[in-house]
């Protein structure tokens, strides 16, 4: 045969397409890091440099844990993809400002070691590692995790001047609980009334809470960046937040149905951070379009149930963790029908 076969060193033969887009896992993860910076700056403004310190510890631990485990597993070290940094930041963002320094360290370690690497690393974890880390801390050190709140700069923990020792959602929950208890009824009714006036503080972030979750404005700046880049889409945040608004409006009030305060419920707690940065975690949310709507609605329903009838004032992290587990099923049973069917 006289084929002028070109040697392998020069020519590569592979299946189409021969060109690829510019996005990569690394680029996506570092874009998420960039998108979290406004919220980080907000947390430092409201809760001081301690917020930065906790975040730093969480990130360092996350990256180091990933590196060590991948070395031990004798697999390729992928800390440069940036996903451990994202997990570290998000874990720290889900901690109260007053927790001891070792809490983010243990939380991050658990998030990466058990939440991510134990399942095989990025892409194989069934649940959001940062939220799993937070859930672990909440179960193991409940006192630190539920009383470690610090007041924001120039503000109160609840966002209203009359209540100083509870975060907004806890303040509301307590007020509703004690509304019919004689000696507290008056004060509770006042609290409920005052909460209406706290929207500005909630939007700006001048309330108590986990360090990265309080400032709606700063979180939204980062979220808009990710939406613009196409690294998250509107479906999960919209359906999640919409569901929370709808059901808290219907069931969240003290004067019967449709007397709740959806604006308060949307702005308070970790909903905005969770809806834009954690429920949208690619690995643990559905890729099916219908699945994404169902996922968001599911997160919303569980969040509302926990907030209104559960034992905790806040339900964002558990709702996302629970819905994470439904992701493979949603992708399977809500799979797409081909064009033209």
């Amino acid at each position, binding site marked *: 045969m006289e084929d002028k076969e070109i040697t392998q060193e020069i020519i590569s033969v592979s299946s*189409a397409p021969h060109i690829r887009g510019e996005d990569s896992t690394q680029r996506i993860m570092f874009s998420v890091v960039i998108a979290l910076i406004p919220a980080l700056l907000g947390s430092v403004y409201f809760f001081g440099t301690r917020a930065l310190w906790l975040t730093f510890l969480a990130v360092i631990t996350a990256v180091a844990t990933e590196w060590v485990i991948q070395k031990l597993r004798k697999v390729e070290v992928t800390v440069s993809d940036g996903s451990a940094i994202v997990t570290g930041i998000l874990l720290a963002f889900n901690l109260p400002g007053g927790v001891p320094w070792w809490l983010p360290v243990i939380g991050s370690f658990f998030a990466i070691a058990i939440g991510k690497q134990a399942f*095989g690393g990025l892409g194989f974890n069934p649940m959001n590692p940062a939220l799993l880390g937070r859930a672990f801390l909440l179960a193991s050190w409940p006192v630190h995790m539920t009383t470690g709140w610090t007041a924001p700069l120039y503000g109160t923990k609840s966002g209203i001047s009359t209540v100083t020792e509870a975060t907004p959602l806890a303040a509301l929950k307590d007020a509703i609980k004690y509304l019919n208890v004689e000696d507290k009824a008056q004060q509770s009714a006042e609290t409920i009334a005052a909460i209406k006036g706290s929207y500005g503080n909630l939007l700006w972030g001048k309330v108590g809470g986990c360090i990265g979750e309080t400032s709606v404005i700063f979180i939204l700046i980062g979220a808009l960046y990710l939406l613009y880049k196409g690294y998250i889409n509107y479906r999960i945040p919209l359906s999640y937040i919409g569901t929370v608004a709808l059901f808290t409006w219907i069931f969240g009030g003290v004067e019967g149905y449709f007397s709740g305060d959806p604006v308060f419920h949307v702005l308070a707690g970790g909903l905005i951070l969770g809806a834009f940065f954690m429920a949208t975690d690619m690995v643990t949310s559905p890729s099916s379009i219908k699945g994404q709507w169902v996922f968001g609605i599911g997160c919303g329903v569980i969040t509302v149930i926990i907030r209104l009838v559960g034992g905790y004032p806040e339900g964002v992290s558990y709702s996302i963790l629970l819905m994470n587990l439904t992701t493979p099923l949603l992708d399977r049973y809500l799979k797409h029908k081909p064009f*033209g069917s």
Partner: protein
Amino acid sequence: MLTALKRSFKGGVHPPENKKYTESKAIEEIPLPEKVIIPLQQHIGKPSKAIVEKGAEVKAGDPISEAGGFVSVPCHASISGTVKSIEPHIHPLGEKIPSVIIESNGEDQISDNITFNSDYMSLSGEEMKNLIYGAGIAGMGGATFPTHVKLSPPPEKKINTVILNGAECEPYLTSDHRLMLENTEEIIEGFRIIMKILDVKRGIIGIENNKPDSIKKMEDISAKFPEISVVSLNVKYPQGAEKQLIYALTKRKVPAGKLPMEVGCIVQNVGTAKAVYDAVAYKRPLIDRIVTVAGCVTYQKNLKVRIGTPLQHLIDYCGGFEGSPKKIIMGGPMMGLALHSLDTPVIKGTSGILMLRDDQVSAVKTTACLNCGKCVEICPMNLMPNIIAGFAKYERWDDAKDAFALDCIECGCCSYICPAKITLVQNIKYAKFKIMEDSK
């Protein structure tokens, strides 16, 4: 005219167009090669059967093989000379295929069969179809489905719209663009012949709006035929895919697993229309085509090339390589075939030859699927490539089939967009192959 309307389909991607290198390069006729290699199969369907022997003298346009069945077309000598051998030779698909090798006598004698018939429009549809069949025409957009078969829909399928595909959505390629500019009359005439064969009164020519000169020229020339309209399409890959094109132009959705005739449409490529005109008006078989040569060659060009011309001849004519190519691609970068031999011949479906350097064909490292859903969002067929490719990875062919693997049009958008650089479409193609194999 409908050009004011911007039309498109759901999904798709925007790879860099890279058409600037050749879009202004007028078509040049490349000098005859010393030999041509004419594979007996250049179309989808049964291979054709050789009807010449070693040593036979042939002229350009003489038939050298006959169709191997209804879904098959004959092949023709593309130069004059002597049949040197009939032997398996490397084919663009990568395998060796029985091919007729003709050595040129340097005289370029043209077959006596080729004669002009000025009254071609008064031929009957059946006569026209026979000429098309005899000319060995197979879809020149790249799919190479025998054209006479496409023009013979079963009588129960009522065709009411013929679409001429001038989208040319693959990056780099400008051969259809140049053809539409330089052979406009022939294309329009070919289109009218196709419309006559199908007895259809509505013809739409779809062209991506990155070719405003082609759109203008096609509009001008077709203006005297009210049944033909030219429509400008949004630039988006794969705008030229049959089902996506039909949707963009008519808003009709071809049912999954069915052919365009299901919604009364038939799509033909502009190059095919030109070949149809040559066949019906001149009895001229398909022996040459326009090929874009782009990438790392000294001169990037649009060439009129005889079928069977070895790649090396094109590269030599374009001044040789400039730098060293990492990949040599027949067709566009999204769906084209990577070649490994410069002895590979140009065939009826060869729209371009791309020589791409290392930095142009990004060598990529695959990471784990993030389930980001990008592929799902952009799939023009609304499939879930991540899921199908995942099943393929674990050889779960039945599950892949249930996830509609067979509806994949293999456009490659999913692999293009994937941030983890997973070879999605390759895995899906393999799944399709396995599913078909299992069903046999």
